[in-house]
């Protein structure tokens, strides 16, 4: 599903974010990418959604080598990967319903489809009663649920969550992880980028540990080792 072959990422003038990373994530897996701040976790996530290009090596999503992806192809890639960000990244001038609908609208979905799918997805994340609220009118946990709903709405094969619990309290963080686990049970590949030790240890899923831009550990049912 996701393959990194000898990927390095350098930021000028002399910062090496990733160094010769090779890894494969299989369809349906739940993988936690862990490591301390500045070890290249977010760069790895950005390479998956083509927000950054590798300086060396190849990145392959499914059968698509996105290493030299053309800029007009990036939206097509992003519509196939659901992304959850630490800082939510909801559109402030749109309601929760409109935020989720936006992900379908960019792909040209019909109004009929949108009005039938969105309430269902918002119900899955427990926001069916708050769909007309603006992001500023709901809590951080609810905002993150809306982001997950948006990431799920076009049924992506991959869900990439970059520090999704970073801005949440323990209870909300737990709820979000449970939601991700459920999504994974339905067959979606989940890539969780985090440095939250408790969450990683609680999951008992595959853990890839990065240190100074390199993979130092890859365990099938791992723990946070740093």
């Amino acid at each position, binding site marked *: 599903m996701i393959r990194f072959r000898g990927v390095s990422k350098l930021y000028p003038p002399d910062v090496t974010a990733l160094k010769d990373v090779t890894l494969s994530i299989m369809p349906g897996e739940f993988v936690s990418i862990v490591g301390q701040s500045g070890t290249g976790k977010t760069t790895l996530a950005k390479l998956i959604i083509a*927000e950054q290009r590798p300086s060396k090596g190849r990145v392959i999503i499914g059968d698509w080598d996105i290493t030299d992806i053309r800029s007009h192809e990036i939206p097509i890639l992003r519509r196939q990967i659901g992304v959850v960000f630490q800082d939510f990244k909801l559109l402030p001038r749109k309601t929760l319903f409109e935020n989720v609908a936006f992900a379908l609208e960019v792909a040209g979905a019909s109004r009929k489809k949108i009005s039938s799918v969105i309430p269902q997805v918002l119900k899955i994340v427990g926001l069916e009663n708050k769909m007309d609220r603006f992001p500023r009118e709901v809590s951080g946990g609810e905002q993150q649920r809306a982001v997950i709903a948006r990431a799920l709405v076009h049924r992506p094969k991959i869900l990439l969550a970059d520090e999704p619990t970073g801005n949440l309290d323990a209870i909300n963080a737990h709820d979000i992880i449970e939601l991700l686990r459920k999504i994974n049970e339905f067959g979606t590949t989940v890539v969780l980028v985090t440095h939250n030790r408790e969450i990683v240890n609680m999951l008992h899923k595959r853990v890839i540990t990065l240190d100074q831009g390199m993979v130092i550990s890859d365990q099938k049912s791992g723990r946070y080792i740093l």
Partner: protein
Amino acid sequence: MFFLTFYRALRFAFQGFWRNIWLSVVTIIILVLTLFSVSVVAGINVVGREMVKSIENKVDVSVYFFPTVSDSDVESVQYRLESLGSVASVTRVSKEEALAQFKERHKNDPTITESLNELTDNPLGTTLIIKAKKIEDYPLILQVLDDPDYQKLVQNRNFEDNQKIVARLSDISGRIQRGAIALSAMFIIISILIIFNTIRITIYTHREEIGIMKLVGASNWFVRFPFIIESLLYGLIAVAITLILVFPLVQLVSPQLQSFFQGYSFDLAAYFTGHFLMFALMQVALATFLSMASSAVAVGKYLRV
């Protein structure tokens, strides 16, 4: 698909406009102030041009013939002058009319009146009053009168007396027009910069949104289009408000100007109404084209996500 995207872009544009109403209002106010300044400068330009024209219109040259010159000789000179392309009109004042006008002018001067009564013959000759199309054409027209054949016909002409004033007027009129063009150009450049920067700042406040849209999978045009339409809305509303403001101002100023332009017909209100379409179109072009172009450029800056 195209219509659906277009419909969505329109919907997002109106949504963005209303949900950020204060930013929209501030942007429109700045555009209105800019357009209003350009309109005032354009108005001053028109009034200045008409003022110069009205002064030029008051300038003419009189050619006085000897009293003995026959009407047919005067007519031949008049015919020759009228055939010149640079001559706007030639008015003939007969000996009798000239005398009547002279008497009327000096009716309160008993010495002149008595002297005239002593005379049995009309001492005045026929006069031709020449108006040129352009003030700078007078010297050329009067060169014709330097023809040796006319020397024995023409007693006097007042152009030499007026020459300095005419030259001065011509110079002032040129300076005013050049000044007006420079001032208008400066104002247009300033307004272009203000509109461009206002829209850029407006877009800057949405830079995060633009990034989010891109991360969710929106194409560049899907992001750009609503912002361009929103900017078009700002431009159109600003033009409408400016026209609504300028119209009563013109009505208010017009009577004052009419009394200022005594003896010269100039109605600013009628001029404005007559040129309304051109005036509105120029403003629409300035405001909408600039706001759309600047938003397209400004959005482009934040699309590289």
